[in-house]
């Protein structure tokens, strides 16, 4: 747990920043993640098994059908749906990647100064240009 409180995130030379990185991240800091994961998995698995084994079981042809307001269901549910949802998903991936680029920039923001800020403004300008195009193209119109 030793190195976690060292607060140097930017160093002018690559090799020094690499050394600081080695000091800052100890793999053992992530051990508690495994503890938490084990706990959560155990809770979920045990609950699932218990609830599956203690409830009553009645099966029947009509009962096993999926419930769609009591109307007999027609066809498979996995039918094609509006392409808008797919476009939203694609746009999400694009924008999310751009946002992830901003995180390291934001961490180092104070040391990068005006130059870094202007560079990010250019980057965001391009991003917003694409964003404007999407809106004009009507991808986000839902009527």
């Amino acid at each position, binding site marked *: *747990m030793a190195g*976690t409180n060292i*607060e140097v995130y930017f160093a002018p030379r690559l090799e020094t920043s690499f050394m600081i990185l080695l000091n800052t*991240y*100890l793999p*053992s*800091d*992530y*051990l*508690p*993640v495994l*503890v*938490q994961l084990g*706990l*959560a998995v155990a*809770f*979920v*698995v045990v*609950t*699932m098994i218990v*609830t*599956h084994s*203690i*409830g009553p*079981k*009645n099966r029947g042809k009509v009962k*096993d*059908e*999926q*419930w*769609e307001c009591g109307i007999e*269901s027609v066809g*498979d*549910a*996995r*039918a094609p*749906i509006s392409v808008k*949802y797919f476009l*939203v*998903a694609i746009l*999400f991936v694009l*924008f*999310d990647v751009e*946002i992830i680029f*901003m*995180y390291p920039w*934001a*961490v*180092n*923001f*104070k040391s990068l100064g*005006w130059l870094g*800020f202007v560079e990010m403004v250019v980057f*965001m300008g391009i991003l917003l240009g694409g*964003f404007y195009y999407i*809106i004009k193209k009507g991808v*986000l*119109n*839902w*009527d």
Partner: protein
Amino acid sequence: MEVYFFIAKAVIILLIFGVTLLIATYSTYAERKVAAFIQDRLGPNRAGPWGLLQPIADAGKMFFKEDFIPANASKWLFIAGPSIAMLTACMTSAVVPFGGSLDLSFLGIEELVPIQGIDINIGILFVFGLVSLGVYGVMIGGWASNNKFSLLGAIRAASQNISYELAMSLSIIAIIMMTGSLSISQIVADQDSFYKWNVWRQPIGFIIFITCAFAECNRTPFDLPECETELIGGYHTEYSSMKLGFYLFAEYINMFVSSAVISALYFGGYHFPGESLLAGVLPEGALGHNLLTLIGVGVFFSKILFFIFFFMWVRWTIARFRYDQLMNLGWKSLIPLSIANILVTGVVILLLNN
């Protein structure tokens, strides 16, 4: 890492896990009581005094219900859906710092033990990663049910969650620029006095973040994935027994975690006004340190409970959005607004620094 330190850490993780489940359980009770109060009803009052045993009775009922899997459903995915939702919900609470540090030198532990399950310096990314994994739980569950309403609900949930995730991660960037760290404990430590709370420095970021938190938790006014009037139960129409319980429970855990994250990022976490004055009054050494930490934990939990109450208050006050309004708000208002917020924050920081 020392063995004792690790054991202390494991105990803290266990405690936080237990407290998370407890608060989530009683949030269901609180929600019904708050709803009753707002609508001038009594609410649950039969099981135990003031109905306090109601959540336990509900959990017992959930366990003994039939565990139903539709014939047309994909069996394993049907089970995987709620499991993933619950798993990701359970993992997030670990990185939130619930208090300062404990001085356990009388147990032979040299280092101060922070009241935080996992103290990693990418805390915020950890939370966001898990929150976005939660979408899979909903999506897989809705798809596996092989029910048209479930699938529609799941698709709505997925596109709503991913849309609001963008604005949410953008609103955080302004805070990271001010703090220069991704670690939640560092961000909390940065707000050590009342006037430095991020809500004063980032009011727009806070409003964006809390709006997105409502959308991520699928709470009213953003509860389109499960709006009863249109989609029966949405993505959990086909679920019964504890599988349904997991979905509902995961929602309450997410509410707790988002309240905790909001308090930590914007309301100073475990810091409170007059902390340094109190530190002067308390006795020196381990006792005073631990007392101050415990008071901080209490303050943090009262902030969290306030935000949980706020979630419920909004649920019974504001009507649901229409789908196009929801998407317009997310994409055309919140995203440009948060980008503008980043630019303004950047200019102000640079002007103040020079």
